[in-house]
Structures are given as C-alpha cells and as structure tokens.
C-alpha cells in the first residue's frame, strides 16, 4: 500500500527542483514541466487517473521536441531535461503498486544530484541536501507502515550513525578523477576578454560578482603588490590590444622562497588563471605557459582551485623573440612617438625612461575616470595623451606601452586584477570583477618590470580600491551597480562560509587526499591510535557478534529447521514445532526415526536449554535435507 501523501510530497519536491535547476532548463521545458506538475496536482485533487496511453504519447512528443532542440542547446542540458521529463511523467504511473514509486525515488536521487553540475555554492548545496532529505523521506514512506508518517527518533538516530561513515568515506575513500567532462561551450565567457581596447575594462568594473578568492599560506604581500596577472597582450592594432600567441608550457625554476597561496576561481569559461609575478611552483590541474602565465588544462566551468608559489620577483624574459615581438608598432601616433624619442634621448636606460614617464604622467594633469571622452578612430594614443588626458587604466596601459615601444624598449600590456579586499578578519582575499585592471610590463635587464601609470594618476586605486580613487559623482555612478553595505555584515559572514565550503569541500581532490595520507603517515601516534582504534572496533564487533549469536542461536535454529524441513511440508503459523514434526512423522514414515530424534534434540535445546544439542539438531537437519534431495 502506498501512503497517500507520497504523491503530494513528490509533487512538491519536483516543483522545488524545477526552481532549483532553472539554469539547466530551457524556457519551454520549464513551462512544460510546470504544466505537467500542475496538471498532476489537479488530477490528484480531483482523484482522477490519466490513461497511460496519453502519458506515453506526451512522453514521445517531448522526446521529439528535445531531439529537435538538441542542436541548439548543450548536450548536458538536454539530458537533464530528459531526466526531468521522465521523472515528472512517472508521477502519473504511480499506483498503489510500489514498483513505479520506487523507480521515481531513484530517478529523483539522480535528478537532485545533477544540481551540482550547475552550481557549487554553499547555498545551492544546502538546497540540494534539503531536497535530498525530502527524497529520503519519500523513500522512507515506501517502506514505513501506512499509519507512520513521521520519522521516528530511532530512524533519525540511524541517520546520525551513518554521518561519521559518510565523512570518513569522503575523506578517506580514493577520489577518482571524473570519468567524463561536461563541456558547456554555449556559456558566455566572463571576466577578462581576449582583447583589450582603450576603455575596455569599463564593463568589468561595473560588475561586482566574485572573480576568485585567495588564501595565503604564511606571509601576505602588501596591497600595492597584488597584481594578479591573467593575460598578456602583445599585438596592438591601433585600437585594441590582442593576446600573444603563446607557446606551450615552460619549465619552472624551483625555489623555496616567496609567497605560497591557494586560489579558488569562479567559473569564467576560459582557461586563463591568475598568478602573482614569477611563479616557481604550482599544484593542481594547471600548467605554466609562456610570459609567466598559468592556465588550466580545461575550460573553467565550475569552481576550480589550485595552489601556487611566487617569488615576488618580476617575470623573467624567456627569449629574444619575445623582446623583438614587443617592439612592433604598426600604427603611428606621431606626437606620442616624438615625445618618446625626446624622453629617450634624455634618459637612455630603461629604468630611467620609466621614471621619466611616471614624471610625465604626474606633471601633465592626467586624471582618472570611468567615463572618459570618446576617442576617434585615428591616432587614439595621441588624442588621449595630448587632448583629453582623461582615461581609465586601459588608456594608461595602452599609452604607456606605446611610449615604451616607440622609445625602443620592449613593452606589453598585462590584463588581470589588482588588489582585492581582505575577508574574514584577513583570512582570505576576495577579488571581484570590478578589481579588473590593466598595466604595462617593460623589459629591463632580462626581466619584465611593472609600470602602472594609474598608480601615479590615482594612487588610491591601488591601496584602497576603485571607488576611493574616483570623484564623488563617479562614485555615485558606480553605486548604481553595487549597493554597498546594504545587507550588512552577515552577508560577509555568509561569503566567508561559502569560501571555506569551496576550499574544504569542493576543492578536496586527489592531491589533497594524498597530502592528508602523507601527513598522517608521518605521525607515529596516528598509527598507534589507528591500530588501537581498529583493535577496539574489532573487539567490539566480535563481542557484539558473540552476544548476538548467543541470543539468536535459538531463532537461527528455528529458521534453519523451517528451511530444511520445507520440502517435507510447511509449518502452520500457530503450530508448535512438536506438532509440526509429529505431522511430518505421519506423512513421511520412512524418516520418522530421524524426525523423532530431531524433535527430542530440539526440545532439549530449546526448552531444557541444553546447548550441546544444537550440533545434534544441525546434523539431523543436514541428514534430513540430504535424504529429501536424494529421494527427489
């Protein structure tokens, strides 16, 4: 008998799931699902049934529809929709027979778990677990007596008992790499674009979503050193900077000095990752590429974590070609070129030239703005440097890079993030999209030195973040986008929780696990403790088993008797064993001697508590069962 509230709870569960899995569902499938669920609710209320023929037709129709949409949407989303359709339609086939209900519960377990493919944040996980328990309750209803709707305390206790086991499995069970990768190509990329125009970061700066979070192992670098390199732009076409076509991975020089840090990156559907200066060690599914950058093997489509060690030095030059590439100037900005030549004559070395450029930006009333005037197509650098003198970091980086190249010093634009805000009492650094920044690297004595004109024009931008660097009206302009401080402290607390959720739970992978094992193995007391614990557990199990055996020997013998004597005839429920055996003696006269012996042995064992008779009973039972087989 199926509990009548089963269908109601299943309906509620699927409605919640529909809300939760919105990201993976197309608008029409959401609509169809909603209609199906509402229709099911209506039929349940009206106590009507729907003919299976109708449901099957609907299923075929939906499959065809999905198939026709397959080319336009992600494979993974299509599969998710298929699963959801099947779960929703399964609701119609639930009868008092438990078979369909059982299938539904299992499909729902899968459906709920797919939520993790869409989102991995703590809140989402909480919702998923809630639905999971809801489904567990449905599962419980399948087997509980009809009158018992509530979880009993003993069942809760069972759940609690299982918890340590779950945690132990999570920590200790070998973690397998994913068997397949899901590729969500149709997602728009977020974060830094592949090209940088003069005012190109404006879009990002108005976005306060999370880019990544960093936790430093020991030492934290000062705020003005936090230049998170993500992309290097080497080709300038007069308006935009295009990324370098970077060769494959470069070996690193292992050094033990520097900052060690761990990053948790939000999905941005690109492969580029973030690092500080010259990286000399890395950990996780990442590899170093040219220009001192780090990238992952796959597109980042879920929260991803990796560890790095940077020595805090400027990035080293890799080859001569790199220097030559970064001298190319295809489009002329005559005024800027003239300025470069003039400054270069006064300051022949690269470092002196950089200082002179800083001086130039400081002394010529440049200002920092999010809404710079629009530039014409021709000679944009000249327009910026000599007409408007108002710009954003993209402008400054672009112009400075041009000035370096015009003076014969290799230079390139670097895109990434600057700074970030310390969260949770300085435990970790949170870098938002609005921290996006662009700066210049010029080659000086084999190293790419950083040149950030913005630091001169708007020094507060570096030490205190973007909004402090702007004028009041500009700040108001930004505040339209970030309603800062509105939700107060607890929002930050939640952020903090979410961070540790991703650090401790989501990013727990093979390397972490291996690390834990290595760490544990090196501690002798862990071994002693584990051995002791194992011994105690074993002793407990043995003790319980023995006790259980003593208690249940009688029960076991009775069951054995019923099983072995079944071929001779079944025992009626209220019949005593004696009456049963007497009956068998009458119906099987040739076995009556053995049966009589069995009766005597059983009675002595069961009622006179002569435990030594157990063996005799078993022997007789074996004999009897063999005889029956032989005669059959």
């Amino acid at each position, binding site marked *: 008998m199926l509990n009548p509230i089963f269908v109601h709870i299943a309906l509620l569960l699927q409605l919640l799931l529909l809300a939760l899995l919105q990201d993976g569902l197309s608008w029409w499938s959401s609509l169809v699902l909603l209609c199906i669920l509402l229709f099911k609710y209506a039929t349940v209320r009206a106590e009507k049934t729907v003919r299976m023929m109708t449901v099957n037709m609907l299923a075929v129709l939906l499959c065809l529809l999905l198939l026709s949409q397959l080319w336009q949407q992600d494979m993974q989303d299509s599969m998710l929709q298929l699963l959801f359709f099947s779960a929703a339609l399964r609701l119609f086939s639930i009868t008092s027979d438990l078979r369909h209900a059982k299938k539904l519960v299992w499909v729902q377990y899968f459906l709920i778990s797919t939520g993790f493919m869409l989102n991995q944040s703590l809140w989402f996980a909480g919702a998923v677990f809630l639905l999971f328990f809801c489904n567990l309750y449905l599962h419980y209803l399948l087997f509980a007596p009809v009158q018992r709707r509530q979880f009993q305390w003993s069942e809760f206790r069972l759940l609690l008992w299982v918890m340590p086991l779950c945690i132990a499995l999570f920590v200790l069970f070998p973690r397998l790499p994913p068997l397949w990768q899901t590729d969500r190509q149709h997602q728009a990329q977020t974060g830094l674009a592949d090209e940088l125009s003069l005012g190109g970061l404006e879009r990002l700066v108005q976005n306060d979503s999370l880019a990544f979070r960093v936790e430093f192992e020991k030492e934290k670098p000062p705020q003005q050193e936090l230049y998170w390199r993500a992309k290097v732009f080497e080709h300038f076409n007069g308006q935009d900077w295009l990324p370098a076509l970077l060769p494959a991975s470069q070996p690193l020089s292992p050094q033990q000095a520097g900052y060690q840090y761990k990053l948790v990156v939000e999905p941005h559907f690109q492969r580029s990752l973030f690092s500080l200066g010259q990286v000399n060690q890395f950990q996780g599914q990442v590899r170093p590429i040219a220009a001192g950058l780090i990238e992952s093997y796959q597109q980042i489509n879920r929260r991803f974590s990796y560890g790095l060690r940077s020595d805090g030095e400027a990035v080293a030059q890799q080859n001569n070609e790199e220097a030559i590439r970064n001298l190319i100037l295809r489009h002329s900005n005559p005024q800027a070129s003239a300025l470069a030549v003039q400054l270069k004559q006064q300051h022949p070395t690269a470092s002196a030239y950089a200082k002179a450029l800083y001086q130039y930006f400081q002394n010529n009333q440049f200002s920092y703005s999010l809404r710079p005037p629009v530039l014409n197509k021709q000679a944009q650098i000249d327009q910026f440097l000599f007409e408007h003198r108002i710009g954003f970091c993209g402008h400054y980086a672009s112009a400075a890079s041009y000035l370096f190249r015009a003076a014969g010093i290799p230079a390139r634009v670097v895109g990434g993030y600057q700074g970030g805000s310390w969260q949770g009492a300085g435990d970790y650094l949170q870098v938002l999209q609005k921290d996006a920044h662009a700066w210049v690297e010029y080659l000086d004595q084999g190293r790419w030195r950083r040149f950030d004109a913005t630091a001169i024009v708007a020094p507060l931008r570096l030490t205190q973040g973007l909004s402090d660097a702007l004028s009041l009206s500009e700040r108001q302009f930004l505040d339209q986008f970030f309603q800062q401080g509105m939700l107060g402290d607890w929002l930050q607390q939640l952020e903090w929780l979410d961070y540790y959720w991703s650090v401790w739970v989501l990013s727990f992978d093979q390397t972490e696990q291996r690390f834990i094992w290595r760490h544990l193995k090196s501690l002798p007391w862990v071994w002693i403790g584990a051995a002791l614990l194992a011994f105690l557990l074993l002793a407990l199990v043995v003790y319980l088993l023995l006790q259980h055996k003593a208690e249940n020997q009688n029960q076991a013998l009775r069951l054995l008797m019923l099983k072995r004597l079944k071929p001779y005839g079944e025992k009626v*429920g*209220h019949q*005593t*064993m004696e009456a049963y055996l007497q009956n068998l003696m009458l119906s099987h006269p040739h076995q009556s001697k053995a049966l009589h012996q069995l009766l005597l042995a059983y009675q*002595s064992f069961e*009622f*006179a508590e002569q435990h030594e008779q157990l063996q005799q009973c078993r022997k007789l039972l074996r004999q009897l069962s063999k005889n029956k087989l032989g005669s059959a």
Partner: protein
Amino acid sequence: MAEIQALQQLEQKLNQVILGKPQAVRLALCCLLSEGHLLIEDLPGLGKTTLAHALALSLGVHYKRVQFTNDMLPADLLGQSVFLRDTQEFQFRNGPIFSQILLADEINRASPRTQSALLEAMEEKQVSIDGLSYALPKPFFVIATQNPLFHAGTNALPESQLDRFLMRLALGFPDLQTEKLILQQDHGQSRLEGLAPCLDELQLMTLQQQVVQVKVSDALLDYLLALVTQSRQQQDCLPLSPRAAKALLRATKAFALLSGRHFATAEDVQQVFPSVAEHRLNPGSSRDNKSLSLQLLRQVPCPL
C-alpha cells in the same frame, strides 16, 4: 523419579476406569498436581462423578463427597458449633469440607450462598466460623461437577467464582468402540471397586514441589504471554487476568511433568490452554465449547 513412575502408573489405572478419555484424565491429574481446583462439566451419565471418585480413590488421601442440593446451607458444608451438655460448652464439629479431596457433586444445584462459602474456603484454604479460623488439611483439592446450565433448578456460578477453578473439563461422549467396550465390560459391579491408591500423601506433595521446579524457557514464557496479551485485544471475549496467566503457567508445568519431562514445551501450553482459559474467556459457555480458546491459539503464531 519414583514419584513420576508412580504417577504414570496412576494415570494408567485411571485410564482403565475412565475408558477412552486419556486427555481428560491427564488434564485432571495436571490440575491436581498444580494445586488447582477442578470443575468437571457435562451432561449427566458421562462419567463426571466416576472420574472424580477414581481420582480421589487412587490418591490414597482422605476424601469426602458432598451432593449439593438447593436447600443446603453453608453450615452443612463447613461444619458448626454444637453445645455439649456434659461440658457446658460449644464444640466445633467439622463439616465435610475438612478433607483432602472434596467431591462437590452438582455444585450448581446449591444456592449461591453455599457456593460462595465453598469457593471462599477454596481460595483461602481455611474456614472461619464464630470468629475462629480453622485451617483446611493439606493438600486440599476440590473436584466439582456441574450439570450444564440449561437444566432446570440450577444456579450458575458467577464469573469471579469460575475463575477460582484452575481448569474446567468436559468429558464428552465416548466414541463408539469405547462405548461398546464399556457395555461389554459391564459386570454389574462398579469399576471403582478394587482401585487401590497408587500415590501416598507424601509422594503427592513431592510431585507438587517438582511441578514448581519445571524449567520454562524465556521464549516459551514469551509465547505464553503472547497468548494472554492476544486475549486482551479481542473484542468478543473477557481478557485473561494475570491470575489466569499464572494458572496457565502452573498447568503447563504440571503437564510437562506428567509427560515425564522437567522442562515445559510449547505443546504443553497448547494442550492445557483450552481447559485453563475457556471458562475465563467465556464464562457463559458450557460443555465442550472451546471455540474461543482455540481461536486464540490459531491467532498467535508459535515459533517454538
């Protein structure tokens, strides 16, 4: 062990007197061994009195028989104080109740007043007259017979008093062959003549001691309790009291001993259950009706 052999001999002898009713004989002996009182209920002429007589005779104890009538007074049963002219004082004259086995024939013919005097004595094992208590001899065993209630001029025993009897037995008609044998062996003299005592008083007391020591396993006790509990969940019968449960246990033990065992089995419980329980479950029923107790037995699964 000698006692048990004597007991089995006794049973054998009784079966020679009461032909074709081995189960009733065994249950009657069982009742005796468990120190309970026995009520035999059946139509006239089925051998109630013979069974009672045979039991009393073969036990070699002091017994008396009282034929109950509707004008009988309690004093006729218990005894009374008589004024002795010689010594100028009252002296208590024992009534027939002062015996080890009392045959109370046709107990339902007596007035309720006399019935309750008897039943009180049965429970307390003593008699109180004129403020003085007189202990009854040991062992004290009442075998009452009663005619079915639909016979005229009877006073039915109330439920509470029925409960004082450990067992109610019905003999029922003998089968054809047995009846033929009875007719063939009818030589004009009572079968009871020549029935010699097989057990003496001491042996009986020893046996009663042994009954107490019969082993009852935990699982068996659970089964017994399951039966009792089941009766309390039924709609159509009176629930079995803890006293009934105790009676059931004692009868079970005695039945085991009668089978020559020092441990009780589930079969023992099932054998004695109808006789012990039926008159408690359904006091209004009469004679051979065991339907309620058998129904209970069928309802409770027996794993043993």
